[in-house]
């Protein structure tokens, strides 16, 4: 009985691993190092950065990547890639005093367990809401200054749970892409499952970012950093990482933004300022680096990853911090708590609940959503949104203006014309 059960488990873990390795293989071809100039064989290793939300999906991805490296090394080959793991800590940071790292944050504590289990990889923690750039423990100036922006934005404009969650997602993704550039990584790996990509598709559509969807859901290069004033870095990203988002959801309830209304445009200016400060700090060679964003688990459902996490020995669920929103003990879908107030829900949470149901009954419909979005073409000019970094949609904005009757030049008036323009979705989250 136990034998057959473990055999079935073996089969299943292989099944999931194959799905992941297939995507890693595709990425490997995309990131093949250029042939050396002397005509010899290509030199240098692929460098990837993994965004770790401490949730199930990204933890599974980390485990699979580790397995892959071990497998190659056991065969006597070189490691197929160097991996840097970055966790963006979106929990509110205590105002840091001048001495750093005297108390360990919850995220640091959780990361310690990951470090112990996967000693091969380097782990970094970037605090997103650190209010002071000088005390940040992150490893690069780029990400450090983007955290200043983050703090300003989070304190400023987020009046509702929906907007707050949206901005956190945006900043998290932005920080990850900046980190990938800072570490000169060729690709950023995200743990999105098929389910997360379907959620992302509908959530971003519901937030008015339909235009940017192909940039968010496809595998491929991140939008180039906006050639804004001062050559801003740190704006080369977009919204929504279903997995990273899990951590941003954890912030919900910590300090309601109700008392901090207003100041929408003011904080946008901060965003522009933060971006240009970044540009000054880093060399332009980092700006020019193309970062591919890949979702190696795009073919696996979330429930499959949850099962996988419990089948691995020792179970990956031991690693995931207990307060993580997607922590599940028994492999079931995360228990959906009764909705107390819709005001406190984010759009992402609505989607997560919705797709948890659809996934249970109609898994192929979930997979089809992500596949369908994949058919849309990427469009947009060179100018990107000052907040999420996605290409701006000139035609759509022009046509839409005035359609609402409530959009009276909200964002453009404050920041106008200086490379600080926002996309429709970010205007919504910062202004509304």
């Amino acid at each position, binding site marked *: 009985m136990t034998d057959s059960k473990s055999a079935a488990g073996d089969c299943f873990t292989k099944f999931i691993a194959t799905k992941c390795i297939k995507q890693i293989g595709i990425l490997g071809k995309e990131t093949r190092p250029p042939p050396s100039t002397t005509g010899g064989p290509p030199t240098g290793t692929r460098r990837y950065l993994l965004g770790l939300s401490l949730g199930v999906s990204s933890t599974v991805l980390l485990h699979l990547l580790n397995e892959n490296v071990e497998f190659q090394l056991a065969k006597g080959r070189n490691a197929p890639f160097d991996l840097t793991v970055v966790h963006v800590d979106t929990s509110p940071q205590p105002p840091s005093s001048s001495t750093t790292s005297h108390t360990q944050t919850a995220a640091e504590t959780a990361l310690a367990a990951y470090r112990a289990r996967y000693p091969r990889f380097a782990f970094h923690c970037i605090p997103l809401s650190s209010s002071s750039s000088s005390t940040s423990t992150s490893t690069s100036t780029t990400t450090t200054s983007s955290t200043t922006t983050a703090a300003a934005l989070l304190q400023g404009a987020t009046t*509702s*749970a*929906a*907007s707050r969650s949206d901005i956190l997602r945006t900043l998290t993704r932005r920080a990850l892409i900046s980190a990938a550039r800072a570490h000169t990584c060729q690709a950023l790996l995200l743990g999105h499952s098929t389910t997360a990509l379907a959620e992302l*598709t*509908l959530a*971003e*559509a*519901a*937030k*008015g*970012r*339909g*235009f940017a*969807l*192909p940039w968010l859901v496809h595998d491929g290069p991140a939008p180039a950093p906006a050639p804004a004033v001062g050559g801003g870095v740190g704006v080369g990203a977009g919204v929504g990482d279903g997995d990273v988002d899990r951590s941003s959801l954890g912030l919900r309830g910590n300090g309601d933004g109700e008392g901090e209304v207003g100041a929408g445009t003011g904080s946008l200016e901060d965003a522009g300022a933060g971006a240009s400060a970044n540009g000054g700090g880093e060399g332009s060679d980092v700006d020019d680096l193309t970062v591919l964003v890949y979702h190696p688990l795009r073919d696996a459902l979330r429930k499959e990853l949850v099962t996988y996490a419990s089948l691995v020995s020792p179970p990956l669920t031991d690693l995931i911090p207990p307060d993580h929103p997607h922590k599940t003990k028994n492999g079931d879908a995360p228990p959906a708590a009764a909705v107390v107030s*819709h*005001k406190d*829900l*984010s*759009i992402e949470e*609505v989607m997560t609940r*919705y797709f948890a149901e*659809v996934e249970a*009954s*109609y*898994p*192929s*419909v979930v*997979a*089809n*959503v992500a*596949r*369908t*979005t994949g*058919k*849309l*073409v*990427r*469009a947009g000019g060179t100018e990107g949104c000052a907040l999420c970094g996605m290409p701006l*949609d000139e*035609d*759509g904005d*022009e*046509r*839409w203006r*005035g*359609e*609402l*009757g*409530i959009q009276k030049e909200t964002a453009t008036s404050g920041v106008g014309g200086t490379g600080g323009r926002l996309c*429709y*979705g970010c205007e*919504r989250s910062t202004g*509304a």
Partner: protein
Amino acid sequence: MRPALCVNCKTERALIKRPKNHEKLCKACFIAVFEDEVHHTITSSRLFSPGEKVAIGASGGKDSTVLASVLKTLNERHNYGLELVLLSIDEGIKGYRDDSLETVKRNAVQYEMPLKVVGYDELYGGEDQVVETIGKKGNCTYCGVFRRQALDRGAKMLGIKHVVTGHNADDVAETVLMNLLRGDLARLSRSTSIVTGDSRSEVKRSKPLKYSYEKEIVLYAHHKKLDYFSTECIYSPEAFRGSARGLIKQLERVRPTAILDIVRSGEDMARLVPGESKPSCACKGQAPGALASAEDDIGGCGSQNGRTPGNEMAAMDKRLRENEAHEGLEIDVAKAMSESKTGSERQRELPIRGGHGDSKPRQVLGNCKRCGYMSSQDICQACMLLEGLNKNRAQIQI
């Protein structure tokens, strides 16, 4: 506590919290703002031309009643110069539409508009049983296809080339999410356009309330004391549509603007569908020539949807899973061949019959071979459905 004042006029007491953005307005300002926004939609999309004859698809429900009222008001206020006609479809079943048709008849008097009621018997000839079956079927597919065609044909009888319908922002948003769930990009692209009907087709259709919230339409009808027939469809909607509808209601509660944001996303994504590149409005000087095909209009009909088996999601899930299973058995012969001939001797490419290579031509609008109605298939949807009905009837008679 002092009562809040209207944010618009700042003199009257605010009575209405706008569902669209939670602005607090007084009654007069709400009505004015609602009408102004519809006016904006009409002008920015250049929906009408002076002297145009326009048929309002009237069901007696809230959407079409508000549409008729607003169009009459705006037509007089802004001198559109439109000749407005109410066009109603009678499914021909006793007790099925009597009450709502009575409402439409009263509306015709109230708004001083001519009314044309087109019966299914008029459109589909003397086949009584077929007519009866259509009425009784009462499901989304039959309801949608036949009523849509009936409106077009009724308009043609009146010599009118433009039909407006009461589809609102909720309907459009619902259709956007539904088509995302169904993975139907072609329909997603078409359903978001404000004007449908090819430039070649005889009747174009538009939805001036495309950006109006359902809740605001109800409020408008209430505060203008409009006479409409309020009934919810007793049938459950098609599964994907029902699922999308439930989702939209939740999203609206979390963020009221979400409905419009989805409409915006839908419009933007329509431009990202490969092979489809047309703006949904006539801004920036584009002639409203390239229009969406009418047969794939938004579908559904607000609150009046029809009965369906309710298992569409399950059916699609099954079909997709079967496809996945079969995928493993497929071999890409062309790829295998091209890989095998990478050697020095390259074979000459054989011409592929049809000349278009791998790109299958997109649906092209033509006319139905049976009834002549516009269709991208050889035989239009209505004729297909009629055929099915006739087959069933024959079996029953045996």
